[in-house]
């Protein structure tokens, strides 16, 4: 871990940074103007049936979807009830009640089927038009999009380095996007994007005392079309704005040539819960799954109140697992305040990213050399910057030659970085799962709970439930908070750097799988986990209680 440096950029540097960004936007706009304009989807030249379908289906689909949306919860409930009673003895009821139930469930099925069909048809029509667009009938907007992404990335970096106000950076990127769209270099966004963007905005984090975290470590099995799904329930998280049970597991193998059956609308798994007062809750899976693994959380709705004593959690069709809430005491991390220069932290975070991606071809690009060059050009850092010197040392050790650090002398690598680099080829990690429940304080506008560690010979992963953690790898918005760095040191002395490796994001909530590099030491019995941000760092030490991995 590393830190230190000047506290904040002065006004001149900030003005130069914004000017640099705006001039870059002008350059990218000019560059895009040199490319051919895109033609708007013009169905006028299409065949009459396609033209008619396009004109009729899109508005119809939108209307149908909009009209049916308020009915969805009711429709789902009615259909679920019909599914339950199908194939069983009919409940004792009057003929009139049975007729009413039949009529209502039939109507619900019709609403569901019709709305879905029209919505699907509309979606397919959009895909046809978009497909033609991509296929070259309409010229592609590649150059403009690439330019916009370049400006967006640098705006995000400058905002993270506090060189530009996030709102100004956002406005600048929006302005360039509008300018490109107004010249037909980008496709205009469809209606609804503003709503999606608002939904994606960060919500405030809950206070520390409002988050209940209980380690579970219970193995459950539930059948699926492809075979048994085995998952370990890691922890229950209960906060005023969300209730989740995190899990990690293994999926049954799918025979060659077959695709995995998605049993539920939201993916592979669903769940439910009942509390001590008899209230019931439904759950859907958030997070990610691959060919063989599943890492994520069951998110419950509605959110159980904090006053409940216990919760019976059911995953799919498994037996319920009782979770006692009363008297639970999660591990809380200790907070040490220590302000770091945002610019230095940004450069360190780029170097940390390189530690996790050293194996990539062209790993030097991971540090975003254009961002480093821009920081140097606006005078935010110079060759004497400690962070830049650390980065230079790291790049040289990895054999990466980047022009942005050629004149920068190397510094000594921090112990943690050197440890990671020393163990990059390790593949001696233990195999197992260790449930955790570590609540971290708010760091740079984010909060999180670490809920479990899964270890394998070549790697390890931490399961994180976060607030204010934006999705990395997506087109990030400059106003979004960046992630704090997550470091871990096992009691055998091996350091690990964590990096996001998939997850579910939305509404300011995140369920993230963090990949640790290198793997856990085989003799490790505890783990010291540190979250490092611009405003300080928080550390917690947890014992590792290994269980067999599912």
């Amino acid at each position: 871990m590393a830190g230190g440096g000047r506290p904040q950029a002065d006004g001149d540097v900030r003005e130069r940074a914004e000017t640099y960004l705006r001039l870059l936007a002008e350059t990218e706009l000019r560059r895009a103007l040199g490319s051919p304009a895109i033609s708007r989807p013009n169905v006028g030249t299409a065949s009459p049936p396609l033209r008619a379908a396009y004109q009729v289906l899109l508005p119809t689909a939108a209307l149908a979807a909009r009209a049916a949306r308020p009915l969805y919860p009711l429709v789902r409930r009615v259909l679920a009830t019909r599914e339950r009673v199908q194939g069983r003895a009919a409940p004792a009821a009057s003929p009139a009640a049975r007729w009413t139930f039949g009529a209502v469930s039939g109507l619900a099925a019709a609403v569901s089927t019709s709305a879905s069909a029209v919505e699907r048809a509309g979606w397919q029509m959009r895909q046809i038009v978009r497909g033609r667009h991509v296929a070259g009938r309409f010229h592609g907007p590649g150059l403009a999009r690439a330019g916009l992404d370049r400006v967006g990335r640098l705006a995000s970096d400058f905002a993270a380095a506090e060189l530009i106000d996030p709102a100004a950076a956002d406005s600048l990127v929006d302005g360039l996007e509008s300018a490109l769209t107004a010249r037909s270099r980008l496709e205009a966004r469809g209606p609804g994007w503003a709503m999606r963007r608002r939904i994606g905005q960060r919500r405030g984090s809950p206070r520390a005392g409002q988050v209940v975290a209980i380690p579970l470590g219970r193995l459950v099995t539930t059948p699926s079309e492809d075979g048994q799904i085995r998952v370990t329930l890691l922890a229950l998280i209960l906060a005023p704005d969300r209730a989740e049970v995190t899990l990690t597991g293994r999926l049954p193998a799918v025979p060659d040539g077959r695709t995995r059956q998605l049993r539920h609308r939201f993916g592979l798994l669903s769940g439910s819960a009942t509390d001590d007062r008899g209230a019931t809750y439904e759950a859907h899976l958030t997070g990610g799954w691959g060919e063989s693994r599943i890492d994520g959380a069951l998110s419950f709705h509605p959110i159980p109140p904090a006053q409940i004593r216990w919760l019976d959690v059911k995953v799919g069709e498994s037996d319920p697992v009782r979770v006692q809430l009363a008297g639970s005491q999660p591990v809380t991390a200790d907070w040490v305040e220590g302000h770091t220069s945002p610019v230095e932290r940004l450069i360190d975070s780029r170097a940390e990213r390189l530690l996790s991606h050293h194996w990539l071809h062209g790993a030097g690009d991971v540090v975003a050399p254009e961002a480093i060059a821009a920081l140097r050009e606006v005078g935010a850092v110079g060759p004497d910057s400690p962070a830049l010197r650390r980065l230079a040392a790291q790049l040289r050790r990895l054999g990466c030659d980047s022009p942005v650090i050629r004149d920068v002398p190397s510094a000594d690598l921090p112990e943690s970085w050197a440890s990671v680099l020393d163990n990059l080829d390790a593949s001696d990690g233990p195999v197992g799962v260790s449930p955790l429940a570590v609540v971290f304080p708010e760091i740079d506008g984010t909060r999180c709970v670490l809920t479990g560690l899964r270890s394998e010979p070549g790697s390890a992963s931490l399961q994180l439930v976060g607030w204010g953690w934006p999705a990395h790898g997506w087109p990030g918005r400059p106003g979004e908070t960046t992630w704090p760095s997550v470091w871990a040191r096992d009691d055998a002395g091996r350091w690990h750097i964590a990096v996001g490796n998939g997850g579910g994001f939305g509404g300011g909530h995140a369920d993230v799988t963090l990949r640790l590099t290198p793997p856990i030491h085989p003799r490790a019995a505890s783990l010291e986990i540190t979250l490092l941000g611009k405003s300080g760092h928080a550390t917690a030490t947890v014992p590792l209680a290994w269980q067999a991995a599912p």
Partner: protein
Amino acid sequence: MTAPWWAAFGPAEATWPCGDQRHRLRWEVGRLTAVDHAEAEGELVLGALGGDQPDCIRLLRAWGEHCDDLDVLMLGPRSATDTLTVDSRDAERLRMALPGWTGYAPLPGGAIPGMPLTWGSLWFRTLRSFVVNARSLPRGTAAYGPGSAAVVARFHAMHAAAFPSHGPGRARAFLPGMGQDLYRELARRAELLELLALGPAFQFRLSATVAAAWSEHDPRTARPALTAALAGRLAPAVAAWLHVSPDEVQVSLAEGSGGLLWDGDRWRAGIRWVAAVWGAGLAVIDGHLVVDVTHAEFPNADVLALEAPGGEPTALAVRCESATGSSQRPRWRIIRP
């Protein structure tokens, strides 16, 4: 510069659907007028009070609202060959992204077709209209129509204590802090797209209006945006003049209202160059780069121009040869060196 910024601009005219008719909007001597609305100022005041506004009047109001909006310079044209493809449908599409109707521009007809107008929404719209229209007018440059500035100014004076307005003499801009209300931004942008949809002649005039408004103020936090606005327009002009890539042209924003200068390293100009020279289509004339307009009375102008970088600017008399009110870009010719 002694000439008003708009002195080298010819009049421009466009037609716009207003109700079930097409009405004329005319720009002349720095002002936009709704030719077919004899009582434009009265309708404007009614609109400020929350009443319905005809489309022409709504556009007049929007022009005034955006006459110092830096977004105009971000979206607007950079050169005569930079063609914007916006039309009124783009504004409609953007408005569709608004949940319900949260835009602050009053709608034609008073409500979204097919959506019932509730007392709550009516009250909200009336309040919003008051607040938005209570903004003070920018100094001197843009007006909604003949004499309307005084009428609206009187209205503002009457309600100055009741409704917020931005500080006197301070131009509005899309600046940090304004990005907090997403839907308000969308409504603003939809309105701006409608103005740009009036066509290239109006796009250049609106850009020049904004540049002129900012040339009278201390740019302060807007300096980066103004520098980019200047560079985005000056670099293509210098590049065309010198036959180099625009990326090779270095530009800085100069303080004050002086003309364009070459300091041996980079080009320096105040944002007024964009208003008075670039906006009028005077940037490059017959192999000369125009640095300043000293006197103008459309279609004639006296300019200072460079024949080569590093040389002394020479006085030229130039004349615009394109037709008055034409939507074509102005064609200037040297008539007397």
